[in-house]
């Protein structure tokens, strides 16, 4: 299946479809990179809900959580389910996506809001290393999923909600 992949890297790899400079709070400049394709394009690449990636998005802040390979809980673990329920109750202003690198584990998350949002209550922050960054127009707003369904559709990163991926 074709996926949209993202990674937060120090520099853009040559094979990236797009690379947008971003500012990571407390760390400095980095690059948000995207690819589209069936195969995992980079060791740090994560599949994302494809609706979030677009052109000329508004200035946003993001809460970016990344989990190392040996720290990734099962996507259907109770604590991950509860984090998804929490997001359904209170959807971030500009959207959110889990990040995955396979069909069974959670590999990260991204929550999006207006510039300056702090995301102090990001329910995924407990799972890994959380970074705050400005997204530089890479993402576009996506409204909340319908709910209450919160399962993955054909392995796509939640909340993508069609079986056509």
């Amino acid at each position, binding site marked *: 299946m074709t996926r949209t992949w993202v990674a937060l890297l120090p520099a853009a790899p040559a094979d990236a479809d797009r690379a947008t400079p971003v500012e990571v709070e407390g760390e400095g400049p980095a690059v948000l990179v995207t690819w589209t394709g069936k195969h995992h394009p980079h060791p740090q690449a994560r599949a994302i809900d494809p609706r979030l990636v677009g052109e000329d998005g508004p200035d946003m802040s993001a809460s970016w959580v990344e989990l190392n390979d040996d720290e990734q809980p099962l996507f259907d673990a109770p604590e991950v389910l509860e984090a998804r*329920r929490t997001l*359904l*109750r*209170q*959807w971030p*202003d500009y959207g959110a996506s889990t990040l995955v690198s396979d069909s069974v584990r959670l590999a990260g998350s991204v929550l999006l809001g207006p510039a300056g949002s702090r995301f102090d209550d990001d329910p995924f922050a407990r799972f890994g290393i959380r970074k705050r960054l400005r997204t530089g127009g890479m993402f576009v707003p996506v*409204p*909340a999923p*319908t*709910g*209450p*369904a*919160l*399962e993955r*559709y054909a392995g796509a990163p939640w909340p993508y*909600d*069609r*079986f*056509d991926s």
Partner: protein
Amino acid sequence: MRIHDQAASTSSDGEGSPADHDIRAWMAPNGLVPDLELPDVDGHSRKLSDLVGGDPTLLHFYRGFFCPKERQYFRLLTALQDEAEVAYTRFVSVSVDSPEVSAAFRAGLNARWTFLCDPDRRYLDELGLRETTDTVHDPYLPVCIVLRPDLSVHAAYQGYWFWGRPTAEELRQDFRAVTRAVRPDWDAPR
């Protein structure tokens, strides 16, 4: 009781609601629900077809936060959401409450599905769902529609009287029937 069953059994004793004799064509089995477009609790304009996507969906019209019958019925739905969340099944609730009021009501209910807001009463008459006996709130009639992904009606229930609303078990049966019809792998692949 489903609306088409209700119509067949409604007596002429006047006990039924003013709406019992006014079956809207779109609510008949296989009728098509108009593709409503209304703001959600965050103020984002949402189209019903996008919200339904490819899944069985409960389209639930309710009077408003003020009605104890609605609050009681939401208890049933919030219990059922724990099953729907793992069953690729969606809920959409619609009222004349504003986004701000709906957001607070939804949060208080602990509901995890989309609430649509029609404070301008845009669809009350188009759908034929104006509750004429409440001239204070001018709300929607309480109606539950179980939709297929193409917005066609599998079943419709009119809940002017509380017992007209579908039980959780009736909704499960409806969701099962729609899921069986729309999932090509209902019989598990071998």
